[in-house]
C-alpha cells in the first residue's frame, strides 16, 4: 500500500528532471505522509474490495445456476430414452404407452429431418440477403439517408416477436398458395425473418473491423471495387461472418411458435420441404409435453409406460441442445479453416 506515495515523492516534483536546483529548493515541500491513507482507511478499502469481489463472484454464480440447472436436468432426464431406436424412428404406429414392434417407444427421426431442412432453408434465404445488405451498408451506402432507413428497419426487425414472423409467413402463403397452406418452406420463411437482422448486424460489425489499409492497398494496385470486396474484404471478414451466421441459426433453431403455425405437425416422416406438413424438434417437444401422460389399458404388457410422452419430450430437448452444440463446433472449425493465414 505504500507504493503510490513513494511514486508520488519520486516524479512530479522534478528532482530528477533538468530543472535548476534553485527552483527545486523554492518549491514548497510537500509532506506526502499527509496523503498517506490512514490504517482504518486502508482497512475500509480492503473491506470494500472484498465485498465487491464476493458480490461479483456471487453474480457470476447466480448467472450460472439456471444454465447449469437446465443442462443438468435435460441431461439427467433426457438420457434415459435417448438411444439409436429413438433417433431412427418416427411416431407412426405409436399407440398409447405401448412399445412399438422394434422395442422402442417411437422417436424423433421425422423431427430431426424437419428441423435440419427448415433451418437450412432459412439459411439459404437469409444469409445471402443479409450479407449483401451488410456489404451495401458498409461499402456503398456511406452516410446516405437510405442507409439510415435500413439501419432503423434492421433494428426494428430484430425486435419482432417470433409469433409475428410466423403470422407473416402464414398469411403470405395463404395469399400465394391458398388458405391454410402448411409446409416446411413456410417455416423457413418465418425463421429467415428472425435470422436476417442478426446476420446483417454481425456481418456489418465484421466488415467494419476490416482495416481500411487493406481496401486501399487493393484499390491502389488497380483491383476493381467488386474484386476488392469479394476477394479482400469478405475474405478477411469470413470467419466472423460464419460465426455470426451460426449465432443466428442458434437463435432460430429452437423457435416453436412460428413453426407451430407454419410447418404443422405430423407423425410420419416428410422429407419434402415444399409440400406437406413437417414436424420440427421444438414443436415435437411441445406436443409431447401437452400429451403429458399416455394410457395403458388394463391388459397391457409390462412394457407399457404411462409417463412416456414426458420422457420423449426431455430426450428430444436434449437432442436439440446437442444439435446446437454440433452446429457451434462446425461453425468454429469452419471459421478456423477459413481464417486468413497470419505470419
Amino acid at each position: 500500500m505504500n507504493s503510490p506515495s513513494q511514486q508520488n515523492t519520486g516524479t512530479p516534483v522534478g528532482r530528477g528532471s533538468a530543472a535548476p536546483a534553485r527552483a527545486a529548493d523554492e518549491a514548497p515541500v510537500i509532506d506526502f505522509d499527509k496523503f498517506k491513507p490512514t490504517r482504518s482507511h486502508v482497512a475500509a478499502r480492503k473491506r470494500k474490495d472484498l465485498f465487491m469481489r464476493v458480490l461479483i463472484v456471487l453474480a457470476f454464480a447466480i448467472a450460472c445456476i439456471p444454465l447449469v440447472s437446465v443442462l443438468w436436468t435435460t441431461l439427467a432426464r433426457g438420457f434415459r430414452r435417448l438411444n439409436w431406436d429413438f433417433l431412427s424412428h418416427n411416431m407412426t404406429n405409436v399407440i398409447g404407452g405401448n412399445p412399438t414392434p422394434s422395442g422402442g417407444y417411437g422417436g424423433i427421426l421425422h423431427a430431426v429431418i424437419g428441423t435440419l431442412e427448415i433451418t437450412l432453408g432459412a439459411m439459404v434465404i437469409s444469409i445471402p440477403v443479409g450479407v449483401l445488405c451488410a456489404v451495401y451498408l458498409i461499402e456503398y451506402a456511406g452516410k446516405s439517408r437510405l442507409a439510415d432507413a435500413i439501419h432503423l428497419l434492421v433494428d426494428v426487425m430484430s425486435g419482432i416477436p417470433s409469433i409475428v414472423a410466423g403470422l407473416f409467413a402464414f398469411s403470405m402463403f395463404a395469399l400465394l398458395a391458398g388458405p391454410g397452406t402448411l409446409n416446411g418452406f413456410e417455416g423457413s420463411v418465418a425463421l429467415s425473418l428472425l435470422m436476417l437482422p442478426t446476420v446483417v448486424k454481425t456481418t456489418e460489425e465484421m466488415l467494419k473491423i476490416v482495416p481500411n489499409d487493406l481496401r486501399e492497398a487493393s484499390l491502389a494496385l488497380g483491383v476493381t471495387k467488386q474484386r476488392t470486396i469479394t476477394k479482400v474484404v469478405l475474405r478477411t471478414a469470413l470467419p466472423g461472418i460464419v460465426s455470426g451466421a451460426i449465432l443466428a441459426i442458434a437463435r432460430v433453431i429452437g423457435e416453436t411458435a412460428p413453426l407451430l403455425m407454419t410447418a404443422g405437425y405430423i407423425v410420419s416422416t416428410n422429407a419434402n420441404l415444399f409440400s406437406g406438413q413437417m414436424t420440427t424438434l421444438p414443436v415435437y417437444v411441445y406436443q409431447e409435453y401437452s400429451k403429458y401422460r399416455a394410457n395403458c389399458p388394463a391388459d397391457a404388457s409390462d412394457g407399457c409406460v404411462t409417463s412416456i410422452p414426458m420422457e420423449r419430450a426431455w430426450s428430444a430437448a436434449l437432442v436439440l441442445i446437442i444439435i446446437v452444440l454440433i452446429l457451434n463446433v462446425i461453425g468454429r472449425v469452419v471459421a478456423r479453416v477459413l481464417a486468413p493465414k497470419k505470419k
Partner: protein
Amino acid sequence: MHPKVPRRLLAALCATAMAAALAACGDNVDPNETPTRDASSIAGSFAGAGASSQQSAVEAWIAGFQKKNPDAKISYNPSGSGAGVTTFLTGATVWAGSDRPLSDDQVKESTQVCAGKEAFDVPVYISPLAVVYHVEGLEGDTHIRMDVSVLARIFDGKITNWNDRAIAALNPDLKLPDLPITVVHRSDKSGTTLNFVEYLKAAAPKEWKYATEENWPNDVGQGAKGTSGVISTIDQANGTIGYADFSQVGDLGTVDIKVGDSYTRISAEAASLAVADSTLEEESAGSNRVVLDINHTTTTEGAYPIVLVSYDIACPVYADADTARFAKAFLGYVVSDDGQEQAMRATGSAPLPDNIASLVQASVSKIAPEGE
C-alpha cells in the same frame, strides 16, 4: 438405343427408390407383419386439425388406418377446436375435430368448401371427466363420494373444508381431515371446462348459476394451463381438487359421483352408459348431423354423467374424388367398432354406445364425391 439410356434409366430408378425409402423412413412397422395393400387401399396426403383432447385417439386411429392403407399420409394438427373448425372452413383440411358441434353460422359457411352442401358433425370420442383430488390418506383404493350439489358448492367456493358436514354426511366410513379445500381449474379456454360446467349447470341449477362457456366462470381457487398443468398442480399440494380427462389421472384419487341412489366410480363403460341414455338435439340445423344432448341427470344405475364428447366435422360431398374416398374410409374406420376399440385402448376413452354408433355410421357412409 442410345448408349446412355440404360444408365439414365438406372439412375432414375435409383432416385425413385431412394425417395420412396426416405418417405417411409423410420416408420414403426412390424417386420413380421406386411401391411395389406389391396384395390381399395388409399394413397395420398390428407390433413385434419382441431381439438387437442382427441389428439391421442386420432394418433391411434391414424396408426390403425395405416395398417390397411400404408400409403396414406395423414396429419392431425392439435391446434384446438376453434382453430380446427376455422381451418376446415377455409378448405385446407379434410376434416376437423371439435369439442363443440358446429354453430348455425358455421353450417351455412361450410357450403363454400363442401361443394354446395352443408357440413355435418358426428360424435367420435367420448371421454369421462374425472373429479380429481389429492388428500393424503384418502387415495388409492378409497374414493370420496359426492353428489352434484356438494360438487357445485365446492367449485363455487361455498364448501371450503374437507371435513365439512355436507361431505361427511355422504362419507360416513371415511375419516375426513380438517384441511382447507383448494380448487384447481383450467386457466385456458377448454372443452374440458365447458363439459364440466355443463354438467354442474344441468344437474345442480340451484347451486351453479354461471353461464356455460369454455373459460372458468368464477374466481375460486387456482388456475392451471392445460390438463397437464391441472394434474401437476393437484399433485403438488395437499387438499386440492380439480377436473381432468380420465386418461391423465394417474395415481390421484377420483370422486365417486352419486347417480340415482348409488355412487358410480369413473370408468369408460360407465361413461358410455350415460351417453347411451342421452338424446339427440333435434333443432340442430343441417342434415346428417348427430349432435348429442348429454343427459347429465341420468339415473341409470352405473352410468357416469360427467363426459366430454368430441366431434368430427366433415363434408357430405367433396369436390375431389380421392378426398371423398379418404374421408369416407377414415371416418368410417373411426366410428367402427374396431376404431372405437383402438381409441379405448390408446386413451381410455368410452366406446360409442350401439344406438349412437349406428346413427353415426349411417351419416358417415353417405359421404360421396361430387356428382354421385
